């Protein structure tokens, strides 16, 4: 029996060189593989499908970068920029923050929310194809601070016209209590408040979302109903290298 893998990745490759090379070279090659000039231009088409029952996704933020940029880290406190995306669906602060990062390569943002069952796609182009990573984020707007993401996914081993599909879970930014209360959710279930600087979640750290409860499942003060509940995965991401 194999375990269920939501995201199984092999991040780190090493190259073992042909035998004709000297022992000295063999010793030296135990470094990270650098298999292509870092000036290689590549373009990736990114398509995402909303798999939830009733959680529209906020307009996408897609950031291409080299190794070292993190939109968030599991178990760590969210940045203010991530908080604004996760609480209010506003991706601009995150994009601004990413552009100021030395690992930034490119970014694109969606123009509209993605309804349940709907898809959106955009393209990012990079000049360091052999070192490119993708981070993609979007809020589940009928939550207090839930979001889905691909967190620093390695793009370099995608050959031209090859694609890869990932199933994405929902995270909780840990920045706002999951009250589900009237006035606290920016999505169509409530049309309430988005970002609020107060941090009052049970833990001030990013983790996998525990789901929403809803009034139908015993949280009397919730404005959500059973249709707003979700399970993982919440979105399907397909990345295709098109150039």
């Amino acid at each position, binding site marked *: 029996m194999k375990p269920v893998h939501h995201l*199984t990745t092999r991040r780190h490759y090493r190259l073992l060189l042909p035998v004709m090379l000297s022992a000295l070279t063999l010793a030296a090659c135990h470094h990270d593989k650098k298999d292509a000039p870092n000036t290689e231009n590549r373009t990736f088409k990114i398509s995402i499908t909303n798999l939830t029952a009733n959680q529209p996704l906020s307009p996408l933020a897609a950031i291409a970068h080299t190794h070292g940029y993190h939109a968030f880290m599991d178990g760590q406190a969210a940045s203010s920029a991530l908080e604004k995306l996760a609480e209010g669906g506003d991706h601009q602060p995150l994009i601004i923050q990413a552009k100021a990062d030395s690992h930034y390569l490119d970014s694109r943002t969606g123009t509209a929310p993605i309804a349940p069952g709907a898809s959106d796609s955009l393209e990012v182009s990079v000049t360091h194809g052999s070192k490119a990573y993708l981070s993609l984020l979007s809020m589940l707007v009928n939550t207090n601070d839930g979001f889905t993401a691909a967190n620093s996914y390695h793009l370099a081993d995608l050959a031209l016209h090859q694609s890869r599909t990932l199933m994405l879970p929902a995270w909780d930014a840990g920045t706002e209590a999951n009250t589900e209360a009237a006035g606290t959710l920016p999505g169509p279930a409530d049309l309430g408040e988005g970002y609020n600087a107060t941090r009052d979640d049970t833990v001030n*750290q990013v983790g996998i979302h525990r789901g929403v409860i809803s009034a139908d*499942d015993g949280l009397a003060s919730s404005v959500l109903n059973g249709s707003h509940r979700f399970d993982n995965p919440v979105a399907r991401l397909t990345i295709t290298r098109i150039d």
Partner: protein
Amino acid sequence: MKKQILLSAGALSLVLSSSFVQAAEFTVSVQNLTQGIHFTPLLVAAHPSKNTLFKAGYSASPALQAMAEGGALTGLTADLDAISGQYIANPAGGLLAPGKSTTTTTINTHDSKNQYLSVVAMMLPTNDGFIGLSNYPIPKHAGTYTININGYDAGTEANDEIINGGGAPGTAGIPAAPGGDGGKNATGAAAADTNTKVHIHRGVLGDTDANGGISDLDSRIHRWLNPVARVTITVK
């Protein structure tokens, strides 16, 4: 696609085999991805394929039951000792809180039959929920391998969600809510499991009544969705 170039070079095979032909040396990191669940002391075990710690769809062993209901590892480690398995018990030195991670010391399985990895720990507060990785083939090539894993129900105890200190096998109830966020005086959320084999945990119900209701768990804190943990294997 990037691939390793592996050679069957006779001349160097002796030299190279010690470093990469077998999965020889690795560490295992486990991160708690939940927002409100603690893990009891982890067991990270390398063993032959036929000696995995658990298998979904099969009954829990008595040792697995003791781990899932009370966090006890002595039964599982005794089972591993009996088959010359290799393991690291309690690498975190206690509970692993939400968001936290821990890494084992190096495990060297060179020239052994222990080429499969299993990882377990009880999820608190639950009746018999545990995080589980079963029988994962230990990679043979140097690199970092990341696996997101799920929460399982041992199928051995009713998920009554009553916190009463009950942790011994066969004793009803939940040992504790380490976050200090549990309730009391619950009437009980569920009777005996319908599925008495190891299965994917259905999650907990909880309620918002800290002094009564059906559950001593808080539905706003103690629920979770998979994945509950991330296992990272670093092969040297």
